[in-house]
């Protein structure tokens, strides 16, 4: 392998797990492959790994069951919160803006709900399929970009539709660092979120489709309960490389 091509192969191999990268790059060096052949081999392995992941249900569920529908709804909520804030604080208002009669209390309620929904959604996406996060992330950004292109957002910062992304990223990050969430925390989050949703709904300040955003929150309760019952066995299995590879997580 030439000195010029080596950094390219090294860069491409970063798409693989650490141990696998070590073995594959070592094999390629030992076989004295050309840069082109080495790149083909590395990309071939990466593609096969990704294709294998999509044979499981969880990546599809993460991308099409959580990321895409949730981000569509959360983009709208982000926009609504921004518009309500503009109306209440700066007294700016446009007929096409998705804002209603909400006062500061309902605005606060919406902000808390936006954070809770996004964080729980991110956490569930991270739990369902860690290795296909890039696809789920692409599905999250798509509705935001569509929103920017489709709606006139004068007076609004261009980042408004992306407000939900930060808590969602924090949710994913939390899941990647701590595989477990305690049952008490999950239950507290679920009950608070449900109570706030009922409050907003009773004040005519919640879109009916936003009730769909409640399932990741209660999913956390269900999984926290299950992982509590399974105890240490599950945490050991989740860290095992073969389990991780075969389960697609």
């Amino acid at each position: 392998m030439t000195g010029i091509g080596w950094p390219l192969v090294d860069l491409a191999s970063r798409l693989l797990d650490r141990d696998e990268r070590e073995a594959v790059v070592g094999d390629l060096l030992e076989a004295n492959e050309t840069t082109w052949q080495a790149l083909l081999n590395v990309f071939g392995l990466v593609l096969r790994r990704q294709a294998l992941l999509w044979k499981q249900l969880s990546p599809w569920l993460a991308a099409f069951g959580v990321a895409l529908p949730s981000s569509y709804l959360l983009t709208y909520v982000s926009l609504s919160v921004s518009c309500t804030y503009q109306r209440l604080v700066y007294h700016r208002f446009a007929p096409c803006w998705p804002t209603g009669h909400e006062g500061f209390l309902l605005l606060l309620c919406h902000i808390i709900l936006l954070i809770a929904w996004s964080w729980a959604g991110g956490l569930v996406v991270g739990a369902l399929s860690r290795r296909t996060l890039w696809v789920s992330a692409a599905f999250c950004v798509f509705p935001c970009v569509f929103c920017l292109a489709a709606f006139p957002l004068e007076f609004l910062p261009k980042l408004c539709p992306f407000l939900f992304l930060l808590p969602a990223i924090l949710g994913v990050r939390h899941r990647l660092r701590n595989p477990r969430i305690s049952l008490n925390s999950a239950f507290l989050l679920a009950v608070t979120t449900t109570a706030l949703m009922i409050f907003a709904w009773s004040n005519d300040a919640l879109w009916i489709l936003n009730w769909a955003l409640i399932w990741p929150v209660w999913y956390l309760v269900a999984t926290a309960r299950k992982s509590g019952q399974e105890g240490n066995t599950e945490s050991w299995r989740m860290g095992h490389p073969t389990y991780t590879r075969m389960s697609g997580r």
Partner: protein
Amino acid sequence: MSNYYYNVFLIMLGEFEYLLITAAAGLGENAYGAAIREEIEATTDRRCSMGALYTTIDRLEAKGLLKTWMGEATPQRGGRAKRMVRVTSKGVHAAKEFYDAVMRVSHGASWAGHRAGNSS
């Protein structure tokens, strides 16, 4: 039927899986990615991609037919570790099953005349 035989008979290897297990078994203690790949390419006179090799190793390991672990690093490999491979007893049985099945199904086939011990 005991669980042991139930497990062994359920596993029918694919062609490439059989090649990989046979190459790894032949290499013994020196079985690792590059050596297995070289062996398969030399025996079959066909290219063997890293993708096919490592995904098959993972699949066989998940079935319990192989065991792998990270081995030593050598200067020849730029100081990178090898992924060592060992065929398990379950893997040996599965390979033998596959070999026997191929021999049985090939019995009487026109191209199966030049078998070991058959000079014609």
